[in-house]
């Protein structure tokens, strides 16, 4: 029996947005912690730490996210955990976000002038205080725009979790599309919902970058 594409179906798809948002938030929160560690390792004085961070970034930026998801998914089975799309998608997206945020934030940390590092050292601040009170607060102002831009990438990336069976917006759309045979309406709705999530963030990101550039160029 073919279902009608009616209000119930529209509500079902729209409610699936919360799983996309939730997965994006998990990936972003985990990725932020990992990204900060990667960024600090990347600018560290120790060359092995630097090398390790570079390798991590290269691998995750140089392989498809889909393969990272598959490896997390099948890797869990190998390590003896029950296969669960939530965990697999979260793990893969957290690592993916950590690599990208690490690279973005490295740039932000490096764009804080050397004099700031040196001055902090001269007044006797140790590594943690130097980063915590001098470098990171300045770097974070530069980072807001690009980080918001990456959040858009991450929301879009969560759509791939549908391929390993995670029911978020894209997969909810597929399920309804298969039941109603209205692919045009369903996929357009799904695209419109992604657009409604991402477009304001994109606008915000470019607005903040523009404002920051105006404030710092003279």
């Amino acid at each position, binding site marked *: 029996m073919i279902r009608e594409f009616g209000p119930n179906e529209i509500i079902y798809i729209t409610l699936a947005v919360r799983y996309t948002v939730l997965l994006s938030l998990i990936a972003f929160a985990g990725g932020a912690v990992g990204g900060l560690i990667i960024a600090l390792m990347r600018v560290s004085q120790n060359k092995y730490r630097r090398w390790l961070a570079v390798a991590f970034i290269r691998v995750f930026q140089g392989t498809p*996210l*889909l*393969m990272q998801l*598959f*490896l997390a998914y099948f890797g869990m089975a190998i390590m003896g955990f029950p296969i669960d799309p939530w965990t697999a998608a979260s793990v893969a997206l957290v690592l993916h976000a950590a690599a990208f945020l690490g690279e973005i934030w490295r740039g932000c940390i490096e764009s804080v002038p050397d004099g700031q590092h040196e001055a902090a050292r001269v007044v006797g601040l140790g590594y943690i205080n130097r980063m915590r009170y001098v470098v990171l607060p300045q770097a974070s102002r530069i980072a807001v725009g690009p980080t918001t831009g990456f959040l858009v990438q991450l929301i879009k990336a969560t*759509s*791939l979790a549908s391929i390993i069976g995670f029911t978020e917006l894209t997969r909810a759309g597929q399920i309804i599309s298969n039941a109603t045979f209205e692919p045009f309406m369903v*996929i357009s709705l799904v695209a419109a919902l992604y*657009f409604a999530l991402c477009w304001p963030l994109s606008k915000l990101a470019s607005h903040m970058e523009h404002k920051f550039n105006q404030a710092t160029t003279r």
Partner: protein
Amino acid sequence: MYDFNFAPVFGSFDALLVGAWLTIQMSTIAMIIGLVLSILGAVGKTSGPKPVRFAINVYIEIIRNTPFLVQLYFFFFALPALGVRLGPNQAALLALVVNFGAYGTEIVRAGVASVGKGNIEAAKTVGLNFTQTLRYVILKPALRAIYPALTSQFIYLMLASSVVSVISATDLAAAGNDLQSQTFASFEVYIVITAMYFAMSLAFSGVFALIGKYAFSYPMSR
């Protein structure tokens, strides 16, 4: 402890190499057509009439704010509802081209905008004719400006193209899916496939860096 078994994967390595070649082929064709689209888009966006500029902006915003996977589903599953029926490979190529075009338009536009007006006036003053100005003063610096962004966009395109295997288009990821369902060595298959994608992206960025070094190695004041 899990016993890794790579023997069946390397036994069918030829199929994976064919898949890798298909991925490179599809990405390259998509990039070339997408580049033409980008140049048209950039010209339209900088000097087209208002409705054209508006339409191009709508296109860019829609593509950049929706996932590639949804775009792919649109071309494969939704277009037949409008009477346009495409095979998996055609739909995949179309989706890649349309996606690349949106990012490429912005890259090309920014590159052309980076050529200063003063440079063109200076070229006229020192007596360069139109073709010389176009070639040495506008195109070469513009190409140099967009080259890094364009090449990294190509690598991004190649990695993103792995997604087309879900609509059963043929590429490296699809070759992996086939092999996985024959051998049941899922993890081993995807480890090898991932390594192959990694090797391809490293190789391409190496080659692009080399080309960039020789093609654009004239001194610049900036």
